[in-house]
């Protein structure tokens, strides 16, 4: 186990480095630079102004020198300064991280929990009305674009019914504290987390259902039936557990996107998270900030892949034996 972990960690660091370098070149290949964007917004610029900006950002140096400086900083866990916001990149990311994690973890929990539950229910009642309904809704959520669902949810729950706030992280200027504040944030969380979770929930429903139906044809299930176990026990202990492997794989993938995968939802619901930070940094060519977000999200993907691999060994002891 230790050897397995050590090997994976070394590989992860190498992959992270390759990602960082290739991202660096990709970003610099886009037209324009942060100085041009900032000059563009100011509505007035002379060569002296642009020169000042480029010098301040270190953009006047050759590209390979900039890369060298950047990588040597990242190795020391220093993500640099955001050109535009004049603040350390790490601070900006950490400031946004809690909001993003709250949103994506809630969505993750909701989609995984409800998805497996509904999928298992559908599989157990194969061919009945409840199965058809669950599958139908799963298909609808699977096929509908997220932003449209988000807008419709706002239209219904915020404007028409007035039940839930349509945007933001909390009520600004209300001065809530303690439990009242938590409740306020929870209210704001419902719509974005639900919309973000729906797509993956649909995927889990379909996957759990299909996988359970497949497993229930297997010989050991027949044996269990022959043994006279109750159907409920068979479903839970024999079928579901064996059917979960593909779901865990997928959950690992979803978990990898926890940090950077909610750009659309964060934008529509004005949720102050990392996805938006990344999108804005991209359009403003804030190289350092963008690279910083990339590095952090790549690290998250690698971390969750590792966790998934470890989880496999618990869910399915056969894998432990094979490696």
């Amino acid at each position: 186990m230790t050897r397995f972990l050590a090997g994976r960690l070394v590989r992860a660091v190498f992959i992270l480095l390759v990602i960082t370098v290739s991202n660096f070149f990709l970003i610099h290949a886009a037209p324009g630079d942060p100085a041009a964007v900032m000059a563009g917004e100011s509505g007035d610029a002379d060569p002296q102004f642009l020169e000042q900006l480029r010098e301040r950002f270190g953009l006047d140096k050759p590209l390979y020198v900039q890369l060298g400086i950047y990588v040597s900083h990242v190795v020391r866990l220093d993500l640099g300064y955001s050109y535009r916001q004049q603040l350390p990149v790490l601070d900006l990311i950490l400031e946004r991280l809690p909001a993003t994690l709250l949103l994506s973890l809630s969505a993750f929990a909701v989609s995984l929990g409800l998805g497996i539950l509904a999928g298992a229910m559908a599989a157990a009642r194969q061919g009945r009305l409840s199965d058809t309904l669950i599958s139908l809704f799963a298909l609808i959520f699977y096929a509908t674009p997220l932003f449209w669902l988000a807008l419709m949810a706002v239209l219904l729950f915020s404007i028409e019914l007035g039940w839930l706030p349509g945007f933001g992280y909390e009520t600004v200027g209300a001065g809530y504290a303690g439990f009242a504040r938590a409740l306020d944030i929870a209210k704001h969380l419902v719509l974005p987390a639900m919309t973000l979770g729906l797509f993956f929930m649909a995927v889990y429903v379909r996957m759990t259902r299909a996988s359970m139906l497949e497993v229930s044809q297997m010989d050991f299930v027949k044996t269990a039936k022959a043994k006279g176990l109750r159907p409920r026990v068979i479903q839970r202990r024999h079928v579901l557990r064996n059917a979960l492997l593909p779901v865990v794989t997928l959950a690992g993938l979803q978990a990898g996107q926890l940090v950077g995968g909610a750009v659309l939802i964060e934008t529509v619901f004005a949720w102050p998270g990392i996805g938006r930070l990344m999108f804005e940094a991209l359009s403003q060519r804030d190289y350092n900030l963008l690279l910083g977000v990339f590095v952090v999200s790549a690290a998250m993907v690698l971390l969750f892949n590792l966790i998934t691999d470890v989880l496999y060994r618990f869910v399915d002891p056969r894998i432990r034996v094979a490696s």
Partner: protein
Amino acid sequence: MRRLLTIPFALALTVSAALADPVSGGKLDLIVQPEPPSVMIGITTNGPALLVGGNIYESLLRYDENLKPMPSLAKSWETSEDGLTYTFHLQEGVKWHDGKPMTSADVMFSVEDFLMKLQPRHRNLMSHVAKVVAPDDNTVVFTLKEPFEAFIRGFAFYTMPIVPKHIYEGTDYQTNPANEKLIGTGPYKFAEWKRGSYIKLVKNEDYYLPGKPYIDELYYHVIPDGASRAVAYETGQVSVLPGGSVENFDIPRLSKLANTCTTEKGWEYFAPLSWLWLNNRKPPMDNVKFRQAVMFALDREFAKDVLWNGYGKVSTGPISSKVPFYANVGPSYPHDPAKAKALLKEMGYDGKPLKLLPLPYGETWQRWAEAVKQNLADVGIPVEIESTDVAGWNQKTSQWDYDIAFTYLYQNGDPAIGVDRNYKSSQIAKGNPFNNVEGYSNPEVDKLFTEAAVAFPAAKRQELYDKVQAKLREDVPVAWLLELGFPTIYNCNVENPISTASGLPNSLRDAWIKK
């Protein structure tokens, strides 16, 4: 002295009180879009930064809707008869937000040091100035090299914000920690910035105008999606949508909501004028007949009525009708496809397809590009739309890599400040998207603009600007589109939200909320 000074203020108060009695208190929720990088407007001068920072910093003057100067940090001023000396008398008892007194030394520091180092616009203005002196704590005297009548309109809150000497002197201005904890003299103080969510300002209790400002707290909400901003207003979570903060197609619906007021005021100083840059260096745009044909081909009334909901005005030429020295002289260009076709035939246009670069500022501009494409196709000019993002647009225009490109620019109160930079041949320089990007070069126009800037008195300037406007309208260096109108949409409980030519960023000290 203190006592004497309060009398005019008391009078001013009673005059406005005749309309309705302002009441103190309440909070105001506004939109700021997009989130600015900083609101230190001595350094960052983009629109959203001004919207917030204009409450924190002030300049010597403010301007009414006809661009007449009004007192701000200067309570009065005189201009010498030869137009060379400008003397400003500062308000007394003005304090910085940290409690230190504001004096002429701060003005000197801002004008001669801080802004000179950081602001291209300020460097331009100061090129007309021979010297600045401060004979005492409350007086600043500018002496010009030659008369420059536009000078009096160069003291707006964002062209010359006064910054605190005691905080910035001897430091690196760009990285000074005060850029995050802002210290100004304005009616509102910086309180909190939750990045990605909101910026909060609070009332400056020690403001030098007694009783003002009226509102206790300002919240500027950051909502990145246009539809969500509209929702925020509909659900009452924000009560002011500054001009340009929702998509144009939402405006008719929002302005019909109950208890909703709209106004087009507050853009007179900026006077945004839109046009198509026609790259004069390349054929066929190098041919004046082609450029005139483009003007006749464009249906600008349609653009105004449909894409801009009737707000704004069809432009007649290089100077906006809101700016001094505007004149309706020279040829005019109504929508006339037949004339455009005739001109194209006359010049022997070969039907070569051209690239059109829209502004990357949202749906309205994309649709406008479609409309222009169709207008041009109707007279036989095939056009391909080439979309890009903000950085790409800046890159392409400032490197002259385009055929036809949309843009709009502020005119900043005077043709000598915001207009001639787009037409003088001395302003042709790569790397800047706000100068003579089209590459138009005409010695006659150069001469007229140069003379008009420094002619004295105003009547002489008018004569020269008449000539240059007529000449430009004949030559069509760019295809002028609209004087843009950006309506402010707000809840009618907000009283007097706009009282200057620079609108919301410069007016909230006089605004109040009905109980």
